[in-house]
């Protein structure tokens, strides 16, 4: 099978994740959509590693996973901190800079 098909899936997943980041209001769901985008990029890396016949793409995908794990840890800690002070996990409520 042509590995390019995986790239289409990756592009679609990335686009869906991007819509989610803009449209959804719950900070946790927004965060999950960011994870979806990172995963889509990883799928591209793995597919390109296969197309090009070397493992560098897989190593980069591995690093992306580590960075994503760090990002989740810090991001969720920030969400919990915001929730603790504002009693809300909605991204619309954290709008102090607007006023």
């Amino acid at each position, binding site marked *: 099978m042509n590995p*390019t098909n*995986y790239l*289409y*899936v990756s*592009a*679609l*997943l*990335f*686009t*869906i*994740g*991007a*819509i989610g980041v803009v*449209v*959804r*209001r*719950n900070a*946790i*769901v927004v965060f*999950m*959509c960011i*994870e*979806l985008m990172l*995963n889509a990029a*990883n*799928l591209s890396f*793995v597919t390109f*590693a*296969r*197309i*090009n*016949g070397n*493992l*560098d793409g*897989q*190593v980069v*995908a*591995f*690093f992306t*996973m*580590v*960075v*994503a*794990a*760090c*990002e*989740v*840890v*810090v991001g*969720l*800690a*920030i*969400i*919990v*901190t915001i929730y*603790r002070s504002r009693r*809300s*996990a*909605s*991204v619309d409520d954290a709008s102090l800079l607007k006023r």
Partner: protein
Amino acid sequence: MPESVLFWIMGPLAVVAAVGMLLVKKAVHSALLLAWVMVTLAIFYIAQGALFLGIVQVVVYTGAVMMLFLFILMLVGVDAADSLTETIRGLRPIAITAAIGFGGLMVSLISRATLGRESVGLDQVNAAGNVEGLAYLLFSTYVFPFEVVSALLITAAMGAMVLAHHQREVPRSSQRDLSEQRFRSGSLATAAGLPGPGVFARHNAVDVPALLPDGTAAPASISETLRTRGDMIDSAQFQLDQINTEVKDEK
């Protein structure tokens, strides 16, 4: 051939689950759908010769990261942020138009780009084993990024601890302080504490509000979380006169 069968089953399922993630109302359902997408991606990785990454995907993403998400959802609770109404007018059509533009661009780009040769495949580099190949690269070419990433992990752990640490500004009030506070607050209605949930001798579940002497339900008797979620059961059905109390004759 088996790979294309796998792809044409799992690929659409992954995309459908991702779209569902945007459409479902509850964050928990979004998390479950995302976990499904991640499992699909793990299967794709394994199908593409990235055995190690497939396993890591299951362990790290569906195992650790999604677990963490569900954990935080449990802590933060279910609130109004779940609603799907748009607050900025016209945001949704603009976002969807932009996304269709972006996605169309990506798809047409991929369909038009040619490599000029056949895809090589990983049979040769995976000959000694995928894990061995990755380990060789990781500890030779990529050894410096590897060390940097380890520093990043430690920093992230420290950062999370700093953010989650909660310094108590006022000393914790003792039981005596709380009791005095209740009596001095003016109303003596809650001086003895809030009523407990459940209808005496009829139903003692936490989602059944207690009955007041006049037969009405006391919403203060159940947890606020259950009330906001709307998981409160009508306690009127457990009132004494509503229930058939005739004792059958046992012979």
